[in-house]
């Protein structure tokens, strides 16, 4: 009888231990979702790039023309959209960035450069639809040029990277 009881005790012990391990694993085993932070940092980087001490820097606006465009935005703002080689990430494109320069008073892009769009455009349509969708953040900044003319810069960034941030 004692032998049976001790076997039973061990069975219950293993059952409880297994259950606790399983529960901790499913509760805390989820990866950290850093995409909110990543899209926010992208916005901050663009804001830094477009506003130095409240003014548009020379590399963006030389006083007469906007020098920034789709081709040089990443280099000028010291960004790279290259990701680790994981689950075809580089082929799909894990980032999207949109920068729009508007006249602050009229909100018109007239005579201003067209919106700059870089990266995987499909991410824009799927913004913040749920956990397994891209995380996006938009920001607006008020900035002046050297002639003290005010502009509104609209920034939108999207990060996909679902596989490493969500189970």
């Amino acid at each position, binding site marked *: 009888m004692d032998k049976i*009881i001790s076997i*039973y005790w061990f069975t*219950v012990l293993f*059952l*409880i231990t297994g*259950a606790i391990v*399983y*529960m901790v694993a*499913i*509760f*805390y085993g*989820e*990866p*950290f*979702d*850093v995409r*909110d*932070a990543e899209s*926010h*940092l992208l*916005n*901050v980087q663009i*804001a*830094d790039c477009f*506003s130095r*001490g*409240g*003014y548009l820097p020379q590399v963006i606006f030389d006083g007469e023309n906007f020098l920034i465009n789709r081709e040089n935005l990443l280099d000028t703002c010291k960004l790279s959209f290259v990701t680790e080689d994981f689950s075809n990430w580089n082929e799909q494109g894990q980032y999207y960035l949109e920068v729009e320069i508007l006249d602050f008073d009229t909100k018109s892009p007239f005579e201003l450069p067209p919106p700059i769009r870089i990266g995987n455009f499909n991410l824009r349509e799927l913004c913040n639809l749920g*956990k397994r969708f891209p995380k996006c953040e938009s*920001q*607006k*900044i*008020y*900035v*002046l040029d050297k002639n*003290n003319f*005010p502009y509104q810069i609209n920034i939108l960034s999207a990060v996909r990277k679902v596989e490493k941030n969500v189970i």
Partner: protein
Amino acid sequence: MLSNRGQISDTSMWVVSTIIILVIISSAILLTSLGGEIKETLGLEKSVKINFEKEVPYKSLFAFLLTKNSEGVRIFSKLSFPEGDLNDFSGKLALRIFKNFYGDTFPNIWFGVGEGYFEFRSNEYFGVGYQTQFGSIFIKLNENKWVELILEN
């Protein structure tokens, strides 16, 4: 004659206790597997929040202070005078920038001038100023005056 009653009650006790243990374990597993909702309720969601939220508004505030009015005087200079405060030009511009740009993220926004030791001047554009522990951006205008932008969730 030997009786089996003692043995039966002993066995039923073990069976009942096993069932109780199994029920407790399964309900705990069920609860934890619900995961997301419980974590949200307990505030244990695994996401990374960074304290960069005010970086972008700070840039707009800088540009706002450098903006010149129709006389060619910067808002910064106007506000630095002892009697300087938000006027029709700077007050409306501040509303257009701070409320329109950041109002969705920060429902409580106040912008205005302060002086001395935490004395906030109320203004007709943002109302009564207040002291806050979090969420304020502060730029000194001179020895006694400063501008403060409060952005709170």
